[in-house]
């Protein structure tokens, strides 16, 4: 295609990124800024018209894979209005409430349970901010700590299976989604553990309160009540791995299961709650996925000028080994994750970096996990850290005021990311238990 274009790739990318950042600074919503950044190019290039913008957004939405997004959001919303979340809080409290900083420990463990059922960090951040921030404030936790721990624990939702990011990544770059689900378990649990460690240290230093230890009977009772809910990840992941249903269908199963639990087992769902859950799902689906559409148009234009290829040719000449490349990939995703939402970032950057990862022999699942974990961290890094923005908004404080604690909590999490990069077996051993071709 090069040669037949009016603009050379350098000028085109300068226009696109220039317009994009200028509009972001003027507080134009990200989705619209991405689309408008493409507009001058569509007008200047003779072979393109703004019709392409319409067509590319349409192509992005006309996808059975992305359909998993509203389903996972709906699952999370049903859990909240239907009493599943309350039961999981009860269980988490019986399990870890007696550790130093009991309520904050419960916050982390609940995120882990939640992550196993829903695949959306934003849903996790929204619901847990409502549960924990006010409660932690009452028990004397500092606000910035409460906002930070709620936001950083919410990122578990996209690392622990099921995960929207894994489904999008798998669908876009043709990696086994079942394999990604299995690969996410170990890093997810490790991140939860280091977060609990961080809470422990904070609690010791600042004398945060703790709960009396629950009796064995209480704990067993809480497990019994929560077991139907805890079965969800088993059904979803198992169903995906054994090929009972596709990734999107597994998300639909999660919705049906959560609906059945809340209506038949826990019996806490009413029509008002249902309508609320559906509407909230629609709202978040709309704004999150609309952004994916315009990001796809943006990514499509970058590919049209072969800009990614030009950038990568440079990087390949550095001659990095697999580990250095892994760190490089993580760095790129961390930076991009600061300014873009995770799904558009996969659309634009994931496809760009794939050949690089392949050239140094990174396993596709390993590459995906480096990308997904890095992008998950991007959910709490400013200026565009959605989970942090949600938690700060609900707490009624400015994002900047929580930043110090967020970065302190991120340090041990970066340790886990480094471990994932340097020790591929950490993520690969679970998927490799299954013979190739079955996932």
């Amino acid at each position, binding site marked *: 295609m090069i040669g037949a274009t009016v603009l050379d790739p350098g000028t085109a990318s300068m226009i696109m990124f220039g317009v994009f950042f200028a509009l972001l600074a003027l507080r134009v919503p990200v989705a619209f800024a991405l689309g408008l950044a493409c507009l001058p190019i569509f007008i200047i290039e003779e072979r393109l*018209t703004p019709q392409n913008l319409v067509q590319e957004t349409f192509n992005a939405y006309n996808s059975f894979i992305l359909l998993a997004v509203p389903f996972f959001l709906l699952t999370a919303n049903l859990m909240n209005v239907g009493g599943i979340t309350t039961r999981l809080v009860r269980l988490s409290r019986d399990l870890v409430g007696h550790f130093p900083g009991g309520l904050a420990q419960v916050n982390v463990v609940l995120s882990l349970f939640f992550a196993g059922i829903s695949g959306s960090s934003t849903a996790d951040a929204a619901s847990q901010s409502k549960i924990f921030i006010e409660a932690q404030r009452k028990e004397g936790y500092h606000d910035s700590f409460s906002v930070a721990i709620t936001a950083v624990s919410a990122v578990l939702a996209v690392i622990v299976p099921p995960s929207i990011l894994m489904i999008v990544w798998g669908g876009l770059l043709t990696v086994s989604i079942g394999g990604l689900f299995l690969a996410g378990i170990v890093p997810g649990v490790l991140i939860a553990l280091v977060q609990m460690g961080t809470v422990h240290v904070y609690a010791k230093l600042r004398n945060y309160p703790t709960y009396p230890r629950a009796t064995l009977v209480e704990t067993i009772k809480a497990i019994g009540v929560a077991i139907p809910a805890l079965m969800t990840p088993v059904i979803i992941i198992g169903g995906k791995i054994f090929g009972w249903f596709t990734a999107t269908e597994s998300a639909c199963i999660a919705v049906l299961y959560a609906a059945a639990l809340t209506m038949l087992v826990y019996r806490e769902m009413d029509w008002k709650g249902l309508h609320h859950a559906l509407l909230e799902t629609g709202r978040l689906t709309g704004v999150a996925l609309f952004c994916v559409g315009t990001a796809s148009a943006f990514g499509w234009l970058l590919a049209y000028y072969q800009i990614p290829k030009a950038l990568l040719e440079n990087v390949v000449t550095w001659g990095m080994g697999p580990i250095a490349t892994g760190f490089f990939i993580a760095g790129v995703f961390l930076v991009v994750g600061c300014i873009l939402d995770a799904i558009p970032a996969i659309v634009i950057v994931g496809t760009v970096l794939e050949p690089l990862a392949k050239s140094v022999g990174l396993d596709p699942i390993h590459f995906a996990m480096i990308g997904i974990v890095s992008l998950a961290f991007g959910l709490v890094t400013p200026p565009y850290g959605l989970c942090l923005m949600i938690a700060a908004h609900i707490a009624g404080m400015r994002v900047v005021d929580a930043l110090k604690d967020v970065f302190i909590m991120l340090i041990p999490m970066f340790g886990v990311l480094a471990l994932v990069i340097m020790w591929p077996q950490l993520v690969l051993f679970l998927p490799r238990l299954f013979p190739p071709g079955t996932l």
Partner: protein
Amino acid sequence: MLRKITFWYGQLLTWLLAASVAILIFPVSLQIFSRYTALIPSYIWTEEMARFFFIWSIMLGAMVGIREGTHFMVDLWPPLQGRARSALRLVAAVFVLVFALVFLWWGIDFTRFAFNRISELAELPLWYIHLPWPLAGVTWVLFLGEQMWDDLKVLATG
């Protein structure tokens, strides 16, 4: 009067949004269960129907998002008040308006193209799912117009 119309139109859109999300579950469930029981015939149109409603729910959500101001943005500005706030909002709104007009203008062509075409499996008219683009354009112009009017008033009166 106009405000009443935009209000009820906004209400209508949120209802349609909730409904389209609810409907999404139906074809996908059907698709799963028909595979495992002989009672339900496995229809081939389930996947297509799911995508149709999915497109509508995204676009309806994006329309509602402008009215409610929930589209994600990167906020680098200190909290602003009064005129300064309205001025900045107006600048951003002008750009979104340009985007809305692009969707309206080229969306009409996009929909007209599809008038005589039908989908592959269910053989539904394709313009059903192209329509959300021009519709989003009109809707955004309407909602933005209302917001810009308010901001202009603040700018004028302080």
